[in-house]
């Protein structure tokens, strides 16, 4: 019933209820983002300065990449990819180690490691493994590998290497990291909306057995979703290593929940089959602004996980209630 791509069901809902309610439901996250941004600009003094906005965008760019990848996994109906933490650490260490020898090879190694992890996840999950447990197990294996890399020591890069220069550089005073984030978001949105793979992904997420009957290669689509998540986590790892110029097994800590919160806050349904990258970008910006304001207002960073956990619970609860009303 939940075929977002067809839009028919949405139209029915729109016909049934008041128009304003429908608009608010479909586009709530964008309104929320706007309201929070305006409130922050009005009431937090240093918020609306170009320096702060730039810092805010840079702070969300790397985790935002992970969130874009997670969007594909969530739309496919697989809940979450918990292995991104280990993937980010693995690829950041690999790329920093290889970067002094060959920059292209370093990037390829980081992204390739992510693709490999995604492939393992995807193959097992598409054959009936529980996504949460499989990615948790893969995460544990990865954390073991990460601890063993480079003898457990942090890798320090060359502060003036090509990768490092790129990560801290900017074009027309827009930081490169931010450009990468928005370009990847755009490509992701195009893949979701304009390709056969994207169409199939919504079908699988909405109802995988119906998709199978309709002739969709369900297993291949699931593998594709996890490979995308792995590749983007790998890319995030390469950039995180280059930006911080230091990599160890702790680089990706907390990225999994951060990304999941961003996806869910954006309104992508955990039931699968609904949502898009634009929503995730809105969710990423929303969380970025909340974090930023908390820092500017000198609230202890300890409060951050509480806010994130509450956000996930509220948004998922809302999602469930709306889904019930709809069906």
């Amino acid at each position, binding site marked *: 019933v939940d075929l977002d791509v067809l839009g028919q069901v949405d139209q029915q809902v729109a016909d049934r209820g008041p128009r304003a309610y429908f608009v608010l439901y479909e586009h709530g996250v964008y309104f929320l983002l706007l309201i929070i941004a305006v409130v922050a600009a009005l009431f937090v003094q240093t918020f609306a300065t170009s320096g702060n906005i730039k810092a805010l965008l840079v702070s969300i760019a790397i985790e935002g990449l992970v969130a874009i990848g997670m969007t594909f996994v969530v739309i496919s109906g697989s*809940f*979450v990819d918990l292995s991104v933490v280990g993937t980010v650490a693995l690829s950041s260490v690999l790329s920093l180690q290889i970067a002094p020898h060959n920059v292209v090879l370093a990037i390829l190694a980081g992204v390739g490691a992510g693709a490999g992890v995604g492939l393992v996840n995807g193959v*097992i999950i598409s*054959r*009936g*493994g*529980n996504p*949460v*447990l*499989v990615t*948790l*197990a*893969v*995460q*544990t*294996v*990865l*954390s*073991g*590998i990460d*601890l*063993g890399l480079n003898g457990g020591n942090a890798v320090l890069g060359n502060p003036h290497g090509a990768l490092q220069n790129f990560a801290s550089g900017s074009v027309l005073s827009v930081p490169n990291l931010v450009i990468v984030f928005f370009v990847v978001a755009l490509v992701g949105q195009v893949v979701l909306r304009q390709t056969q793979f994207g169409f199939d992904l919504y079908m699988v997420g909405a109802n995988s057995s119906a998709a199978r009957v309709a002739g969709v290669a369900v297993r291949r689509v699931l593998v594709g979703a996890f490979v995308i998540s792995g590749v983007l986590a790998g890319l995030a790892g390469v950039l995180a290593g280059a930006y911080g110029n230091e990599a160890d097994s702790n680089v990706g800590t907390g990225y999994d*929940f951060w990304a*999941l*919160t961003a996806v869910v806050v954006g309104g992508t349904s*955990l039931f699968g089959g609904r949502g898009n990258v634009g929503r995730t970008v809105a969710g990423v910006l929303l969380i970025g602004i909340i974090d930023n304001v908390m820092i500017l207002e000198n609230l*202890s960073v*300890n*409060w*951050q*996980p*509480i*806010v*994130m*956990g*509450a956000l*996930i*619970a509220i948004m*998922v*609860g809302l999602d*469930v*209630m709306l889904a*019930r009303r709809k069906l």
Partner: protein
Amino acid sequence: VIALWSRLRRRSDTRVIIIFLLVLVGLIIISPQAALSPIQVLGSLSISGLIALGLTVVIVQGAFDLSVGATATLAGILAVKLSDHSFALGLAGALVCGLVIGVVNGCLVVNFGINSFIATIASMTAIQGVAYVLTNSQPVTGKDVSASITFISSVVWFLTPEMLIFLGMLLVIHLLLSRTQVGRDFYAVGGDREAARAAGIPIGLRTFQGFVICGMLAALAGWVTAIQSASASPEEVPGVALVGITAVVVGGASLKGGTGTALGSAIGAAMLAWVATTFNGAGISTTLQDLTDGGILLIVVLASRSGAKAPIALRLRAWLAARKGVMRWQ
């Protein structure tokens, strides 16, 4: 003997025990000295065992609780803080903490209808945050440690208090699951939800009770950990949920719900504890330990996934039977 064997074979626990013995033989081959220290194993088993017991009650119903690690952390912090006033208050505080978290998880899953994985991921994040706020991200230590020293050093025969607590809880959960109506309801809810609903079982209430029991056992595990060292750290203890879930699944529970026993989970936890103790004793690195933990869970998930093929022995028997049939036809 044959009758006894065929009766034993039908019990899922028997299979777990056989796997356990095989693993044990393997461990003894790796390092005889490290593997043959059952008292140490029992000591390290108590905490993961308590968590596995709690998870059993939830997993049997086809639900999940990923927040057990964070619950144990928070309960440990409360225990250390409150133990400064009185020892009993520390225990009470930890248990109330587990109760509250269980109620919140139950509400999220039952009343709001959120998938239990996601609900407990959310509560885990929030609980971890509360732990950071309460301690300002610093480890806490108890001021008066005399009570906890008395507690640790009271030994019955060779059983330390934490072992006694674990064995007691094992008995309680075993009786709950196998001898009471509530326990039978748990299996019914996990086995076939619709049938359970039709049979008039209060499904929501049972799921709720499962989360409360799981939360309180996790809190008890946190309390024991905190009392042992009279200190607690807000840092996330990685792998608590992982080891617990692996123990339960190794112990024969299906992730789809409806199967699993307290005894099986305890044996599963014992197996993991034995592996960890042996690896520690033999000086094997944490890298390899993480790899084995993740590997074991991966294998177990693969074996218990939906649509998994029948065990090799069964497939072989079916193949032989088919061959025989073909030959007879020829």
